[in-house]
């Protein structure tokens, strides 16, 4: 191949990787609400809202998400956090469109999945998702 053409191919490759990186970064931390489905088995009995964090051993952001959830639980006695290894629960991953770890399912008292938190979500957004789940079940 012509070396000028090869350089153009290299530039295109770098540009593609950059666009891909920006798109992935925008999608890697987000909150998906109203995703539906039930995981009653995973709820913690005493809690109004249970945060079920799906983690994996191959996961950098899982530690950060665990820290956020642990702090929230410490401040709010009606919320529980449990962490399960995605390898232990592949069915949960399949049922709730889990393609990356950490993904945290926000379960209400009945075990309805009110929202999914993808990535290490900011504390304020976790709090908002928890409040939304609580409000939704009071209304129901």
């Amino acid at each position, binding site marked *: 191949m012509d070396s000028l053409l090869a350089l153009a191919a*290299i530039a295109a490759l770098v540009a593609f990787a950059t666009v891909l*990186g*920006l798109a992935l970064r925008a999608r890697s931390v987000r909150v998906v609400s109203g995703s539906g489905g039930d995981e009653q088995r995973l709820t*913690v009995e005493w809690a109004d809202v249970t945060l079920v964090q799906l983690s994996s*051993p191959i*996961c*950098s952001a899982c530690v950060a998400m*665990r820290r956020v959830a642990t702090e929230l639980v410490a401040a709010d006695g009606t919320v529980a956090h449990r962490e399960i290894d995605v390898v232990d629960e592949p069915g949960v991953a399949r049922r709730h469109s889990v393609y990356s770890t950490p993904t945290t399912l926000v379960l209400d008292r009945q075990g309805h999945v009110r929202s999914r938190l993808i990535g290490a979500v900011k504390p304020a957004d976790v709090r908002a998702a928890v409040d939304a789940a609580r409000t939704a079940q009071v209304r129901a």
Partner: protein
Amino acid sequence: MTGTTPDGRQVGGPQLGIDPRGPRFGAAITSVLLLVVVLLGLTESLGVDLLARATQPAALLLTALVALFAWGACAGIQKHPYGALFRRFVARRLAPPTEREDTAPPTFAQLIGLIVTATGLVLHLLGVGGALAVAASVAFVAAFLNAAFAYCLGCQLYVVLVRVGFLRRSAARA
């Protein structure tokens, strides 16, 4: 912070880990070298016999990268030569890390890099045209995403493998 689940089990690995900037520094070097492989692979013509194909510059450079990935995947990311380079020359010029990372994710990423680049190298040696450039391009995208965006493509693959049932409890614990 304890890092345990309500049932007392530890999931995410030990709290003590490596500076996450170390593997990203290594990935930056790797992505530049992979780009050189792509460039050479696109401009060189395919060698006529096995020896010619094995000794052409693009193949030699990719062989070195395969060896480095194998080192990282087998010995663990903390023993990778780039890690030593980072600790010796880079880390001391930076502020201490604000967080630490488990060694499992970047080590798994090295394994994915090894599989991709080794496949390309073997196909090239078998006489498949363009194998070097394609494999190096794929590996470049992964290394670049890690270096520039701290995004671990191999780690995403892990969950996909679990979903399709390819990775199970016993295999994942090994």
